């Protein structure tokens, strides 16, 4: 079964990042690194963009970008 992406993670559920698509290196720089603990805090109306907590930081992420981050629920 394919791993859920951050885009599908329900709000306020903690998960750990497993893999980030290689063409989205920028996301790594923001803190979405394999092993980091993430949580979706809220979504804008229409579900896009999202506010995500990654480690200590808060990030703004588009739904499209969130699809590139594979996570496993904790």
């Amino acid at each position, binding site marked *: 079964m394919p791993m859920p992406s951050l885009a599908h993670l329900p709000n306020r559920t903690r998960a750990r990042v497993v893999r980030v698509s290689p063409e989205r290196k*920028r*996301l790594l720089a*923001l*803190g979405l690194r394999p092993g980091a603990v993430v949580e979706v*805090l*809220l979504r*804008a*109306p*229409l579900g*896009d*963009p999202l*506010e995500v*907590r990654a480690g*200590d*930081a*808060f*990030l*703004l*992420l*588009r739904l*499209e*970008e969130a699809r590139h981050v594979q996570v496993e629920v904790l």
Partner: protein
Amino acid sequence: MACPRCHAQATALKAKERWALVGNPNTGKSSLVNALAGADLQVGNWPGTTLERLSAALDLAGAEVELVDLPGTYSLLPTSPEEALVARELLASPPDRLLLVLDAGNLERSLVLALEAMELALPTAAVVNLLDEAEAKGLEVDLAALEEALGLPVAGAVAARGRVAGVLAKALEARVPAPPVRYPGPLEEALGRLEGLAPSRGAALLALLGETASLPQALVRAAEEARARLLAEGHDPYLLALEGRYARAQEIYREAVRRKSAPSSLTERLDRLVLHPLLGLPLFLFALFLAFRFTFALSTPWVDLVGLVQEVLAGWLAALPLPALLRAFLAEGLVAGVGTVLSFTPVLFLLYLALAFLETSGFLARMAFVADRLMRWAGLPGKAFIPLVLGFGCNVPAVYATQALAHPLDRLRVALAIPFLACGARLPVFTLFAFAFFPQNAPLAVLGLYLLGLGVGLATALLLGRVLGAGPGEGAMELPPYRFPPWKLLLRLSLARTASFVRGAGGPILVAVLLVWVLMNLPLGGTIPYAFLAQALTPLFAPLGVGDWRLVGALIPGFVAKEVVVGALGVSFLGPEGVGPLGLAEGLRTLAQGLETALLGTLQGLAALFGPPSLLPPHEPTPLQAALTGALAPKGALAYLVFVLLYTPCAATLAALRTVVGRRWAGLAVAYQLLVAYLLAFAASRSLP
């Protein structure tokens, strides 16, 4: 008393010892010395410097111990005189024991120095101070794990409160540590070959990195050779050293420090309010409205003051016995030129202040979140909204702000969109015409112009994106935690930024204003160039319903700065204002009154900031407005307004564009804008009966 986790044997206490305290600045080392030694403190200077030297004598288990506080440093590799002193002292007169003072709240950073100091092969113990601050930050330091990781005795302390119970006991357990860092291969090899010549691994490393003070000659020579060899092989020992150290510091930090409580839940809670699906957008619009209101309401009194100063200066100049043309040049050209530049400054300063406030408080990022959808429509990242918002205050800083965008194509597209945004300089033109021609609907007309500018700008960005094949934008950005803006810093920063603008754009604007004065006043071959040029261009504007050459002429100085358009119109329609000579005392009095008015105006503006916007009372049209209504029909006025909104970036903006996107694109922008302005003005003139 024993240190079960330590690796080597404790060093025995001698009858007389000197202990040195080493650590980052602001880790409470002096408090520690104070807490350990009580009253016996000695303050002096390090020889040959003005740096304070703190020491104290201590009687411990029958031995005489001198505690010496070395200046705070982040590394033994010096970047300042204090730091150089520490390395020198430790190498030239090594203490009997080294006490590493670590900051519990910044342990990882403290470890960088600690690991270096541990390589000096001195009996060492560590004190983790500022435990209370760490706890306040939600960090928990596992002292036992730290002992294990470092192989040294570690005591915890809160020196400022006198809680130094275990420190001396652990200090007595100090021992020479095993090398704490394994560096990358090439560096380890080089070190291995040098260690025989050096008093310690640390000394060898310092030599290898080129810091040769207080080291034996033989070592220095061998190190130079080894360094040259490494560099020739393409390895910078400095980078290798940093690699080893930071990696190890990170490792130890992860083993020894736990985050106890969740970070700033305040930020999270605020976000749920600020980014609320329903509240988000209104809050965002309100914040924007407030920011602009702040900027324009508070700057207007000062811009008026600048105008007053101009008048007084011109009056004083008019009183001087000078040839008439020179007098006019100075009074109307030079003074006006400087005045124009200075009139930018209150608006810019306040705009930067407002922006810095929004940025440092964290709100700006949240606004980007709300604006993301709109940005995405134009194919831009959410962050692009920041330069666009700035553009409504002044295009110049907005263009520079595009450099924050990661993708060069994004930078280009936003930079070219910005000049369409109605900046503060265009507002006087808008209000002048709107109140003269659409008195009932003036605010609506002005708002319409603003929205038109935004629409054209975004459409340009979108179009350019399609034409140049821009990929899907990246929206991801960090939302910094909310924090209280540091006021003093905001003021200092806004001042610096404004000063930088004046330095950069002041010159070109002044030159341009002088040129325009020359055009308008110096007869060339019988005619005035300004009138000649304006009359030549006027037929082009006929389809727009603009037939009066004076209106067309005013557009020329608009290339320099848009607010000059109003002045040019005034001069063309009403004749130049005769500047009467002004006495010194009279002028000073006027200035003093003007200053008072400006201050009052600022206070009033502040007080009214959160109140309802004052509905401007219908007032008598000014002479200029009366003259204009005679020269133009409403549809012509609309077309003129649209043209002024869109037609060209001002000189300062053009300079900024050249810096940011290059000459070719800047030139293209001007041509493109002229075309778009003309077409849309034409459409506007047809839209009214």
